[in-house]
C-alpha cells in the first residue's frame, strides 16, 4: 500500500504543480529547514541522531571538522601532533568566544572530552569516544588526549566532538543546559517550541565564516509528502530525507530543486553463517550472485544511489580501490542452489523494519526466490529488529536487510562491528578476518590498514557473510536560490550555504 500511496501523491503533486500559480516566498531573513522530527536533545553530548545533529552542530564548534571534500581540517584545534601511538596533542584557538561572551579555553576542550567519556554521564555516544582514556591541558592552549593503544579512527571520531563551556555546564547542570545550550558556533540558540521548531539566530561575533541568514528555523515535519509541499508552497527552504518518487515533481518546480549526494550509508543483506541453510557456503554465494544491484538502484531508487561491491565507500578511510565486485549471475546462482540440494529448500527468514525501504526488501526476496531459495519476509519495528540484530549468532535472523552508517567514515566503524566475533552485531566466525580487523585497528600506518581491509573485503566476497548492495544517496529538496553542497556525512552547516533570489 505504501509505495502506491507515494506514487499517487507524487503524480498528483506533479499535476497540481503544473497548474500552480505563485504564492508568498519565505523571506531569507529567516531560513526554514524541515527536518523529520524535532531534535531529541540540544546538548551535543547527550542524544545523537540526524535531526539533533542538524541543529546543534550549528550552535557548537567541534575540535576538528570535515570540509566539503571530506578531509579532516582544523576547527577549534588549529593543529595536532601524534606524540606517540597513543598520545595526540592539539593546539587550541585562542580567539573563540562562547555565546555568553566567555573565552573558549583548552580546559573547556579537555572538559568536553572528559564529560562525554564519563560512563556515569551515560552518553549514548560513549561508544564513539571510549577509546580515549585521558584528556588534560598540558600548557596554556595545548590539550593532550591519551587513547587505549593506537587508535587510527580517533580523528574521524573527534569530528563529532562538540566543545561545551565548562563554567556554564557546571553552573546550570545537565537538564538546564539541554534546554538552553550555549556554544561557540556560528548560530546561537534562541527558542525551542517543543514539537514544533527550534529557532537559532546568527552569532555576529563568530570567529569563522558567519552564517548567511539572520535567523534559522528547524521544524519537525514528519510526513515526507508534506515536506515537499512546504517547499512548493515556499513555506520552507530546505527539506531533508526525501526519496526519488517524492522529489520527481521538484525537478520542474518553479521554486524548488533537488540536491542529492551519495552518503556513507551502505545498504546490505546480512547472512547468519552459523545457522542453516547459510552454514553452506554455496548457498551464501548463490545469494550474492542472485541480487541484481543495478536493477534495485535504477528500477526502484531512481538512480540516485550507487551499487557497491564492498561495505565501504570512497569516502571511507580504508576503502579498497581495486576490489572486483561479484557480478549478477542468476544462472550460476540457480546452479549453486541446485547443487546444494535439499539444504536450499529450508525456509529463510529475511528480517526487516519499516524504517527501511520495503520495495527493496520485496525485490530482493523475489530475486532470491527466482534463484530457487525459499525466502519469507519478517517485518518488525526497529526496536525489536535491533534487539535481534545484535543478539549474537544464536538470535540473528538467517537473512536481514539493513543500512550501515558509522558516522565516522572509517573502515573500522563498518567492518569491525559487522564481522568481528567480539561485536554484538556479528554473526560471522572467521579467525582470519578477526586477526586482520584487530591489526587494522591497532596501527596508525594507513598502508597497512588498507591492506588489512582489502583482505577482509576479499574474505567477505568469498565467504559472503554480507552482501553489500548500494551506497545510499541523501536526497534533499531546496529552494531554488539555495547554493549548498551536501556531504557524505550528511552534515548541515548553515555557514556553508549561500542564497540568492
Amino acid at each position, binding site marked *: 500500500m505504501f509505495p502506491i*500511496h507515494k506514487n*499517487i*501523491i507524487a503524480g*498528483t*503533486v506533479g499535476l*497540481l*504543480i503544473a*497548474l*500552480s*500559480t*505563485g*504564492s*508568498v516566498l519565505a523571506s531569507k531573513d529567516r531560513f526554514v529547514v524541515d527536518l523529520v522530527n524535532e531534535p*531529541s*536533545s540540544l*546538548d551535543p553530548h*547527550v*542524544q*545523537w541522531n540526524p535531526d539533533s545533529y542538524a541543529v546543534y552542530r550549528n550552535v557548537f564548534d567541534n575540535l576538528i571538522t570535515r570540509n566539503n571534500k571530506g578531509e579532516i581540517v582544523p576547527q577549534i584545534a588549529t593543529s595536532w601532533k601524534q606524540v606517540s601511538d597513543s598520545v595526540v596533542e592539539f593546539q587550541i584557538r585562542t580567539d573563540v568566544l562562547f555565546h555568553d561572551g566567555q573565552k573558549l579555553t583548552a580546559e573547556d576542550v579537555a572538559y568536553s572530552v572528559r564529560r562525554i567519556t564519563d*560512563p556515569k554521564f*551515560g552518553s*549514548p*555516544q*560513549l*561508544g*564513539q569516544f571510549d577509546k580515549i582514556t585521558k584528556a588534560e591541558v598540558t600548557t596554556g592552549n595545548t590539550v593532550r588526549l591519551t587513547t587505549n593503544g593506537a587508535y587510527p579512527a580517533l580523528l574521524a571520531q573527534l569530528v563529532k566532538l562538540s566543545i561545551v563551556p565548562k563554567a556554564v555546564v557546571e553552573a546550570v547542570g545537565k*537538564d538546564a543546559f*539541554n*534546554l538552553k545550550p550555549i556554544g561557540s558556533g556560528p548560530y546561537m540558540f534562541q527558542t525551542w517550541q*517543543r*514539537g*514544533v521548531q527550534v529557532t537559532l539566530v546568527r552569532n555576529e561575533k563568530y570567529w569563522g565564516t558567519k552564517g548567511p541568514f539572520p535567523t534559522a528555523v528547524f*521544524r*519537525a*515535519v*514528519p*510526513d515526507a*509528502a*508534506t515536506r515537499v*509541499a512546504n517547499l*512548493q*508552497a515556499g*513555506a520552507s527552504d530546505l527539506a531533508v530525507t526525501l526519496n526519488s518518487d517524492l522529489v520527481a515533481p521538484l525537478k520542474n518546480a518553479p521554486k524548488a530543486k533537488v540536491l542529492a549526494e551519495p552518503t556513507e550509508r551502505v545498504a546490505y543483506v546480512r547472512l547468519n553463517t552459523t545457522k542453516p541453510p547459510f552454514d553452506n557456503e554455496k548457498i551464501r554465494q548463490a545469494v550474492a550472485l542472485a541480487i541484481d544491484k543495478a536493477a534495485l538502484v535504477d528500477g526502484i531508487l531512481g538512480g540516485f544511489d550507487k551499487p557497491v561491491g564492498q561495505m565501504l565507500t570512497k569516502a571511507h578511510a580504508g576503502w579498497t580501490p581495486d576490489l572486483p565486485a561479484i557480478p549478477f549471475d542468476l544462472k550460476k546462482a540457480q546452479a549453486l542452489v541446485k547443487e546444494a540440494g535439499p539444504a536450499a529448500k529450508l525456509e529463510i527468514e529475511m528480517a526487516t523494519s519499516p524504517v527501511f525501504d520495503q520495495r527493496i526488501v520485496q525485490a530482493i526476496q523475489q530475486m532470491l526466490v527466482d534463484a530457487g531459495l525459499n525466502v519469507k519476509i519478517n517485518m518488525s*519495528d*526497529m*526496536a*525489536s529488529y*535491533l*534487539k535481534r540484530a*545484535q543478539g549474537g549468532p544464536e538470535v540473528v535472523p538467517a537473512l536481514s536487510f539493513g543500512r*550501515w*552508517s*558509522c*558516522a*565516522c567514515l572509517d573502515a573500522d*566503524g563498518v567492518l569491525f*562491528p559487522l564481522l568481528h566475533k567480539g*561485536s*554484538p*552485531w556479528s554473526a560471522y566466525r572467521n579467525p582470519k578476518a578477526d586477526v586482520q580487523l584487530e591489526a587494522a585497528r591497532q596501527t596508525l600506518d594507513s598502508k597497512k590498514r588498507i591492506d588489512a581491509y582489502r583482505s577482509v573485503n576479499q574474505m567477505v566476497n568469498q565467504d559472503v557473510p554480507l552482501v553489500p548492495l548500494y551506497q545510499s544517496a541523501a536526497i534533499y529538496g531546496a529552494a531554488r536560490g539555495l547554493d549548498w553542497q551536501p556531504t557524505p556525512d550528511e552534515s548541515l552547516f548553515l555557514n556553508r550555504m549561500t542564497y540568492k533570489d
Partner: protein
Amino acid sequence: MITLIFFVQRLTGDPTFLLVPETATQADIDALRNTLGLDRPLFVQYLSFLQQIASFDLGRSVVQNVPVSTIIASRLPYTLQLAAGALTVACGLGIPVGIVLALYRQSAAARMLAGLVFAAQSMPTFWSGIMLIMLFAVTLGWLPPSSVGGFENLIMPSVALGLLSMATFARITRTAILDELTRDYVRSARARGARTGRLLVRHLARNAAIPVITVAAIEISNLLAGAVIVETVFAWPGLGQVTVQSILSRDFMVVQGVVLMGAFVTIALNLLADILYSAVDPRIRLDGVRR
C-alpha cells in the same frame, strides 16, 4: 491497563539499541542500560513505576531527557486545539446534515448529501490531508501548508480530521430524529399546525440530543487520543504524534504517561456526558434511570 502497557512495551524491545551508535560494543550497551535502570528485574522496575505514579511523577523520557510531564504539557494545548477545531467541523456540519437527511429523506438532495457524507468518511486522511495541502496551500496559496502558528494553521487539519467524525454525527443525528419523528408528540404538534422549523427547535432537538451527546463524548476521546495521521501529515505537534514516536523508540515513560492521561480524560468525558444528559432531559435527573 497501565500494567498491560508497562509489560507489553518492555517485552517487545529496548530503547538502548536505538540510542547507541552502531559501533557500540556490548559493554557500551550494558553500561547505558544500567544508567537508564533498564537492567533491573522487570518486577523491580514495575514497583518503582507504581511508586512514582503514586506521587504524581510520570518519570523521564530516556530519548529526550526531559520529564514526561513537560512533554505532555507542551503537546496538550495543540491536541486540545485540534480536537476543538475538528469537533466544530464535525458537529457544525454533521448535525445539520443529519437533520436534513432525516427530514427530507426522500429527496434527491438528501441522497446526494448522503453520498458526500459517505465519501468524506471513506477518504483516508493521509490522502485527503495531502490533497487539501496541495489545493489550498500550494496551488491557491490561501493557507499555510503545515505546522502551527495562527488560526489559519488550524483550518486544514480540523477539516481533514473533522470530516471523519462528521459522518458519524450525521448518521446518529439522522437516526435519532427519525426515531423521534414517529412519536405521538410529533404528530400532535403537527396536528396543531407547527411548522418544521418550530417542530425541530421546540420539540425534536432536546429529545434527539441524548444519543448525539453520547457519541460526542466518545468522539472527543477519540480525537484527544490521537489523530496520529492528521497530526503527521500537517506536522501538528499533538499527543498522537508524540505517542507513536515514543512507541517506536520504546520511550516507555512517555507512552505510559500519555496512556494514563488518556484514561483520565475518557473517564472525565463520560462523566461530563452523564451530567449533560440530565441538563438536557430533566427526567434523567429525577428518577435516576432514563425513561
